[in-house]
């Protein structure tokens, strides 16, 4: 309820699961996925991320979800207005 909402994320990464394999980066047709340079998870991997400013650009193609071997990605889409 009192949750602070910043950006409505369409592409959410489970950073602790991510192993930095970069497979998601390549398949994204709109090129919004990148590897975080500023942090490492507890296993020593730099996780993938979609910067807040690019979240909007996701076209919900699910390519990244399909490709991620570690099932790190959860995808959301705006509710249809109808």
């Amino acid at each position, binding site marked *: 309820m009192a949750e602070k909402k910043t950006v409505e994320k369409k592409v959410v990464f489970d950073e602790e699961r991510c192993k930095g394999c*970069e497979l998601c980066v*390549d398949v994204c047709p709109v090129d919004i996925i990148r590897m975080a340079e500023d942090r490492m998870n507890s296993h020593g991997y730099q996780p993938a991320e979609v910067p807040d400013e690019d979240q909007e650009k996701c076209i919900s193609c699910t390519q990244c979800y399909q490709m991620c*071997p570690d*099932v790190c990605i*959860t995808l959301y889409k705006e509710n249809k207005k109808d």
Partner: protein
Amino acid sequence: MKKIASYPDSLTEKHFHYCPGCTHGTVHRLIAEIMDELDIREETIGVAPVGCAVLAYEYFDCDMHEASHGRAPAVATGIKRVHPDKVVFTYQGDGDLASIGTAEIVHAANRGENITTVFINNAIYGMTGGQMAPTTLEGQKTTTSPYGRNLKEAGNPIKMTEMLSALDGPSYIARVSVHTPKHIRKAKKALKKAFQRQLDGRGFTLIEVLSTCPTNWGITPKDALNWLEEYMMPVYPLGDLKDIEEVE
């Protein structure tokens, strides 16, 4: 916002122990999604191999047996004979299925045992640190073929799936790959068909999945996908190898 793709229910919360980019995880997800979609998680008993997927029993959120190396089809047979109404699958690597477990898979297939086998062909022994598998390609260097696989000494990359298709028992055998999202979707289709066949009581089904092992191949996950496409697919062509549509 509406969730359009997320972690399947039939996977536990455990993080996979697989190496970065290893496609074992991809196949795990597909199987879990199928269990979700067919609503069979509580009806399924899986059999994990000895191989990188040895801990699969920690990931699939269904009843599981950890088999001894290569014997998953025999273990699954024991289970299925006791619970003919449950869904039983084995998940096996190429060392497991195509080398030490040759007799067990051949005879489970020949008996038409009503189980589903998911056969991960990554052309190498992952778990043990990159030895030659029976499926290793000609010239491929591994820790036990340091000069590249020599066909005269080690024989040809074995085509288990073609070989098993020569038997009368199997109802559906196909080879798929998981190196692109498109192929992953196809792979899921084939896997789902195999599980459905089992639910229909139609006998043995096997899906071979061409997979990567970036660590032991010694290349990056991305390069591994390309290597699979460039080198493995010509030797192991994709497609349905056997598909007995209707029971006479």
